[in-house]
């Protein structure tokens, strides 16, 4: 039976803990300098800066969480009501009080000797530019209001919640990606829209923010039944009901449309957006390559950057007129590429051979070691006569096909090449996955011993995965060298391997669509190991956020954003069913040598 609960029916301890956690999170964001730095970036004129967005979501989240109850199966959840709002508000108020105390502490004691970002910038941000007294009051009100808002989100019906969420979300996204939106408007030759939406001093104007929000609400409310999902479902339904011939004809039409878009995109995207698109593309290629090794064959390779380096250095050493080893003949990119591919495959097998017999985590650490060894060798004085040491190799010529030059400076042209590579690797990954080779990898990943007993030569299968992964990374590297025009050892740090791994894990190991999403979200929005993403402001905090995302994903959604079916089976269904199986298996007393 559902019951209405009295307004005071909550655990004081839980509420205090939630409030304290919220305060901790806000103070943390302030103390690492995020608040102060982001505060300069206006989202909505005289209403919201990126800095307050960075802390504002915290009371909302904790208010929502504190008011929501864990649903226990079999017991109807209590009726939502004022009690929930009170809880949310209390959590927010506690957070506000503690944060104010922190601001007061920072104001009265100089902490900047230790915590370098706790200077006046942070203090004034935490007190809304007011004095400590009035500022604290404002902070408490701010947090309380947001806490109540969070709780209110919990109390309202899911429909209302989704309308509000989508509306606010859209507005904020439009505000955050101001620069990119302006670039797009420019590309579409509708620069006027930007000047209407955004204020000349940066950020949405209050009017336009309200208008956007209202528009989205209107669309959500009146456009029911015509949302993108509904349309998608309909198209899908339509698609599946077609005959094979129709489907084939349609796929041609789709292909042609896709090709047209492909030709047009760089013309619409401005310089910085195409630059980002190229970076995303390169990391997508790397991600897909690593996915073959990690996702398909099940070997955790942490030194993947080594093959990227081999590809980049290979092209640089063979094509640059300034190559340190002049005794190597200078070749054209297209002549050098096959050589680089062969070398990369060879290096893949060379590195793969000693490690394929190792257990999963040892394999990870040894491949990491190999990655570091290769980077350090490129950096060393020993190899300097050939690869240029820390000075690297410069003047790597750009790629040209006939008269068309895909110049490094012109990222619009590079886009075309990268897009082809992405498409090629996508097709390769997809086709391999559903082939005899892909099946042998899947079997290997599931149970190596049984795979061997089914006639799969595990050594060959593993080395094949290593070699294919290496070749794909080398292709990305080759393109990277030609695009940037130079190679330096510092571009091939361990960090690159880890970032690629994060991309495929966050996107969804083994899922090609997931990896695409991972690359776009992480590399595109947050930025790669060195290159900025769309959210340039995140530069300094990028890896911190990477870390948080990775931890969160592992704890809550280890299968990734868009998981492959197989992967989620491995991680979830098995929790239930396999147990029973194992237990049964346990009852089968085995002979001496128990499965290894």
């Amino acid at each position: 039976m559902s019951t209405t609960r009295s307004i005071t029916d909550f655990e004081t301890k839980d509420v205090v803990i939630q409030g304290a956690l919220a305060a901790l999170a806000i103070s943390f964001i302030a103390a690492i300098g995020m608040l102060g730095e982001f505060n300069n970036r206006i989202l909505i004129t005289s209403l919201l800066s990126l800095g307050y967005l960075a802390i504002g979501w915290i009371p909302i989240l904790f208010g929502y969480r504190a008011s929501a109850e864990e649903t226990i199966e079999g017991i109807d959840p209590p009726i939502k009501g004022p009690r929930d709002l009170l809880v949310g508000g209390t959590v927010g108020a506690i957070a506000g009080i503690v944060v104010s105390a922190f601001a007061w502490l920072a104001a009265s004691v100089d902490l900047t000797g230790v915590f370098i970002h706790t200077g006046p910038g942070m203090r004034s941000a935490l007190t809304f530019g007011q004095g400590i007294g009035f500022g604290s009051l404002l902070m408490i009100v701010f947090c309380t209001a947001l806490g109540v808002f969070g709780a209110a989100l919990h109390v309202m019906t899911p429909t209302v919640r989704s309308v509000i969420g989508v509306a606010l979300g859209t507005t904020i996204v439009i505000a955050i990606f101001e620069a990119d939106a302006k670039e797009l408007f420019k590309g579409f030759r509708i620069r006027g829209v930007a000047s209407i939406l955004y204020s000349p001093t940066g950020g949405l104007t209050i009017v336009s923010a309200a208008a956007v929000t209202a528009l989205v609400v209107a669309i959500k409310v009146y456009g029911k039944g015509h949302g993108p999902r509904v349309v998608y479902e309909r198209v899908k339904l339509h698609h599946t009901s077609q005959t094979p011939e129709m489907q084939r004809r349609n796929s041609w039409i789709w292909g042609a449309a896709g090709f047209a878009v492909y030709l047009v995109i760089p013309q619409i995207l401005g310089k910085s957006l195409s630059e980002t698109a190229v970076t995303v593309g390169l990391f997508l290629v790397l991600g897909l390559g690593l996915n073959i090794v990690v996702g398909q064959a099940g070997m955790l390779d942490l030194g993947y950057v080594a093959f990227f380096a081999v590809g980049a250095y290979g092209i640089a050493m063979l094509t640059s007129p300034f190559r340190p080893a002049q005794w190597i003949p200078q070749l054209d990119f297209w002549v050098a590429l096959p050589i680089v591919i062969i070398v990369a495959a060879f290096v893949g097998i060379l590195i793969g051979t000693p490690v394929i017999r190792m257990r999963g985590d040892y394999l990870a650490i040894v491949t990491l070691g190999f990655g570091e060894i290769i980077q350090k060798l490129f950096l060393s004085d020993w190899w300097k006569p050939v690869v240029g040491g820390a000075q690297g190799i410069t003047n790597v010529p750009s790629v040209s096909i006939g008269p068309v030059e895909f110049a490094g400076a012109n990222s619009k042209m590079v886009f075309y090449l990268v897009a082809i590579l992405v498409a090629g690797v996508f097709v390769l990954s997809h086709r391999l996955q559903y082939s005899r080779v892909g099946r042998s990898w899947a079997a290997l990943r599931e149970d190596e011993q049984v795979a061997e007993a089914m006639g799969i030569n595990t050594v060959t299968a593993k080395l094949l995965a290593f070699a294919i992964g290496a070749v794909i990374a080398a292709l990305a590297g080759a393109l990277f060298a030609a695009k940037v025009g130079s190679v330096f050892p510092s571009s091939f740090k361990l960090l690159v391997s880890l970032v690629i791994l994060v991309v495929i894990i966050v996107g969804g190991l083994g899922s090609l669509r997931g990896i695409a999403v991972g690359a776009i979200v992480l590399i595109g929005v947050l930025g790669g190991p060195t290159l900025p993403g769309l959210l340039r402001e995140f530069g300094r905090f990028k890896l911190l956020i990477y870390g948080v995302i990775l931890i969160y994903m592992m704890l809550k959604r280890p299968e990734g954003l868009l998981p492959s079916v197989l992967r989620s089976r491995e991680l979830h269904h098995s929790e239930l069913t396999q147990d029973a199986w194992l237990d049964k298996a346990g009852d089968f007393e085995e002979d001496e040598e128990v499965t290894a």
Partner: protein
Amino acid sequence: MPVLEIRGLTKAFGGIQALAGIDLHVNKGEIVSVIGPNGAGKTSFFNVITGMFEPDAGEIRFEGESIVGLTPSTITHRGVARTFQNVRLFPNLTVLENVMVGRHSRTSQGVFGALFRTKAFLQEEQEIEDHARDVLSFFGSRLRGYREDQPAFALSYANRRRLEIARAMATEPRLLLLDEPTAGMNPKETIELTGLIGSLRDERGYTVVMIEHDMRVVGQVSDRVVVLDHGIKIAEGDYDTVASDENVIEAYLGRPVNNGART
């Protein structure tokens, strides 16, 4: 000529003698059951034949050629397939995929074919799928239809056992080693599978060596029964001879403790 011929097969694990000089031969088209108490060395016996462990001494000849020291995948390629005592499927692959993996050693298409979807590749994929379906049909409708696309872990216990046999059959073995095929099945399922094991021999012409605890199953389908105890063959012969052997009964049921008189 016997399909499988084993002489003096010996394997020790540390101090434990798992196999102590076993001699055995299996003729074409026979079903030979290996029975014995737990720890008698039965599964070791299978592991050594399939190359998962190398024997300390002894000779294993399959179709006249020695297979000692070959890798498990090579032995499978030669024509020996097995199932596992504790059912080791690829739990997250679908039923059909499990069986398709079994076709690995009888097919050859590599990366090139897969990438360019060559005619040969597509033909082979079709052949793999058809063959897999054919093998699944051996179990009637139990693994066909919607079940083909279910992940293996979602199957019932008995179906897992069936699928494992199907997967082994997909490798086109000339010698099939079944490790406790009916374990964990209820009496009805056991009877059904017993019939199928019989038809493996009679209809499909397989030669089968089977480890089995359920003596009813052993009795119904075996041409010969071999009893192992502590790595030694203690009896061999047709079912009735073996089942009435005092040694066998003792080894199997265990001797009552002599001083076990209770107060």
